[in-house]
């Protein structure tokens, strides 16, 4: 278990994320309601020029289909750009280490991985990617996938808000997310990260000697690059794709406890903020309560599970983080589906891995920025339905009757997740693809493969396998899972929201969804439906490892 001071760190970090999110939410809400703001004088002329250049009518609203397919189409164009840059990096500029282009399957996997906010990485960046690729394929897609996630969530909430006629304009939302939220936040975060010790250069790796080299001629390569700017968006955008193969365990990406704490804060910031934005956009601030409290109660349960074992410094753990900050990071990174790691997952206790699974299976604790919120509303609708059945009343949410089509859509959205995790996991074993990359048929081997597809489906990106999974089967299979795991639930939930737009609202108070009792029922429902769905697989993996004392 953890001691009092460590508990204070947990409370302090989570508390500052909640406080900062609460402070930031009104600003973010105004960005999307297009209320006048201080940045208008500088940004309005720029943005208006962009809309003219794109041929976009900035006043035109979109229905859910139009909004969703605009987002999907722009994302696909961005994936194609990323793919072409990765496969052709050998003939593109800023490649001082002369890396060759990636294979088609690895480039496909990487482009989809980053563009879907997953950031599963079957490569080690410092040995495979040029500066140009790190910037124009990785950082670029990390910005756009983060922006897309926030946009679709805001559009989703608009659909639920009474009195709205459309879901907004995707192009306008996207541009404003980049110019008014992500660039300003990442600018501040990048400068702080450099100040705290993270490199930012494009001058090439340093071929240096060592101290003993002064006598015996030994040398080393110091692999630095534009790291800080990438880390800012990878954490703020809950992307998680590292500059280095070892991700945030690499000292250049996370040099000290201060950067570790700051990066944990960055991961939590936007998902937490969006819980508040939900109530603000709805015009019912109290509806933030079940979303925020529900998420943080589940998050706390995961933390307790991970903190049960003794967290000592062992193999796979960095000295400067120790056992506690490694376990803490592992839970946070899966709770907000970032997927960056500051330890080697193989060095983590099975209970920490179990907690990590819970975050990725629930996906809304508080989940990735944007989609985590959408999933939480999905769970709310499921809970409202269950409670309605038990009390024999028509289920209602936000004054709207929940009809059978709503429940069907929600169930489809929920069932996509187990389907795209469990089927490919079994397929990977049945096809011999697991044996082909040398993963043993043991409990821990099963955990690694199950984790790979869970992480892909949850658009998380943390993994055991890393570059070991760079085979055609795993590249293509996880690419398909990541793509479906991203766009299928978003599409279904957008359809749900679209159908609620303009639905009749009753003013009489039915089931109170902003009460603490409802939050507790919500938490219990989530645990029951998720644990029941995945229990057999969890039992074969981390739970079996725990009882074997592995």
């Amino acid at each position, binding site marked *: 278990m953890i*001691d009092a001071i460590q508990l204070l760190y947990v409370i302090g970090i989570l508390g500052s994320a909640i406080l900062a999110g609460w402070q930031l939410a009104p600003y973010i809400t105004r960005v999307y309601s297009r209320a006048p703001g201080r940045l208008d004088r500088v940004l309005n002329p720029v943005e208006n020029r962009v809309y003219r*250049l*794109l*041929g976009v009518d900035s006043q035109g609203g979109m229905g859910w289909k139009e909004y969703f397919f605009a987002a999907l*189409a*722009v994302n696909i*164009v961005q994936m194609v*750009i990323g793919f072409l840059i990765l496969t052709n990096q050998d003939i593109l500029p800023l490649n001082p280490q002369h890396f060759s282009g990636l294979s088609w399957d690895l480039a496909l996997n990487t482009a989809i991985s980053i563009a879907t906010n997953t950031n599963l990485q079957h490569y080690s960046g410092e040995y495979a990617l040029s500066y140009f690729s790190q*910037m*124009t394929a990785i*950082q*670029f897609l990390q*910005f*756009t996938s983060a*922006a897309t996630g926030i946009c679709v969530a805001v559009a989703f909430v608009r659909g639920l808000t009474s009195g709205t006629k459309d879901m907004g304009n995707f*192009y306008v939302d*996207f*541009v404003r997310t*980049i110019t008014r939220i992500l660039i300003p936040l*990442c600018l501040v975060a*990048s*400068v702080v990260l*450099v*100040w*705290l*010790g*993270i*490199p*930012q*250069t*494009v*001058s090439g790796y*340093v071929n*240096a*000697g*060592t*101290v*003993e080299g*002064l006598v015996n001629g030994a040398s080393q390569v110091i692999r630095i690059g*534009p790291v*800080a*700017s990438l880390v800012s968006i990878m954490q703020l955008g809950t992307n998680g794709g590292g500059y280095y193969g070892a991700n945030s*365990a*690499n*000292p*250049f990406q996370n040099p*000290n*406890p*201060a950067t570790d704490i700051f990066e944990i804060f960055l991961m939590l910031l936007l998902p937490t903020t969006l819980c508040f934005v939900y109530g603000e956009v709805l015009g019912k601030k109290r509806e933030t309560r079940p979303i925020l409290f529900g998420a943080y109660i589940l998050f706390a349960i995961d933390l307790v599970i991970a903190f049960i074992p003794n967290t000592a410094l062992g*193999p*796979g753990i*960095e*000295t*400067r983080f*120790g056992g*506690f*900050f490694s376990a803490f990071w592992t839970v946070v990174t899966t709770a907000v589906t970032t997927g960056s790691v*500051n*330890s080697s997952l193989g*060095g983590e206790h099975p209970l920490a891995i179990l907690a990590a699974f819970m975050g990725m299976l629930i996906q809304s604790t508080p989940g990735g920025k944007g989609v985590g919120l959408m999933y939480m509303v999905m769970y709310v609708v499921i809970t409202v339905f269950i409670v309605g059945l038990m009390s024999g009343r028509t289920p209602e949410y936000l004054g709207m009757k929940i009809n059978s089509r709503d429940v069907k859509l929600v169930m489809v959205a929920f069932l996509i997740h187990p389907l795209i995790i469990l089927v490919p996991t079994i397929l990977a074993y049945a096809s011999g693809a697991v044996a082909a990359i040398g993963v043993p048929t043991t409990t821990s081997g099963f955990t690694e493969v199950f984790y790979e597809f869970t992480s892909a489906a949850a658009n998380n990106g943390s993994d055991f396998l890393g570059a070991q999974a760079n085979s055609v089967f795993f590249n293509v299979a996880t690419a398909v899972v990541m793509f479906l795991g991203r766009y299928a639930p978003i599409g279904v939930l957008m359809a749900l929201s679209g159908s609620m737009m303009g639905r009749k609202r009753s003013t009489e108070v039915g089931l109170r969804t902003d009460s603490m009792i409802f939050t507790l029922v919500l938490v219990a429902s989530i645990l029951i439906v998720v644990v029941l769905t995945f229990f057999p697989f969890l039992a074969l993996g981390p739970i079996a490892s725990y009882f074997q004392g592995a």
Partner: protein
Amino acid sequence: METTTSGKKAKRALRPIIGLGLLSLLVCGLFFPLFITGLAQVLFPYQANGELVHLKGEVVGSNLIAQNFTLPIFFQPRNESQSASGLDPDITVQMADAQIGRISNATGIPASSLQQVVNENVDVEGRLVELQYVNVLTLNIQLINEYQSVYSAYG
């Protein structure tokens, strides 16, 4: 006639999609990281360039990553596969203490003096999070500077 109107329609629909794809590439993929690079190089050049360490006018490493120390006269980092990064620059105070006897035997520096070097260099930030560790390169550089006769080949 019909094909040209549908062609025009497709063009109108594709323009924002492809345009936004390319524009976001320029702003997020090139402008932002290069702007930050410029800013970092002006504001914090030491950190931005990897916290390089010099001896005898040559770059001999970075404060942030481990390097090979094989001789008994130096503190040695964890084995490469022991950490997650393989580049862990730090060792716990315990691991450092365990090496004092060996270094003292090889160099003739009294164990108490070596103990003092370790104690002086316990990471301040680490202490704040209840971790007692030292940077291996920092220890060795201090040894080279303080005991120039012993480490004359390096200082």
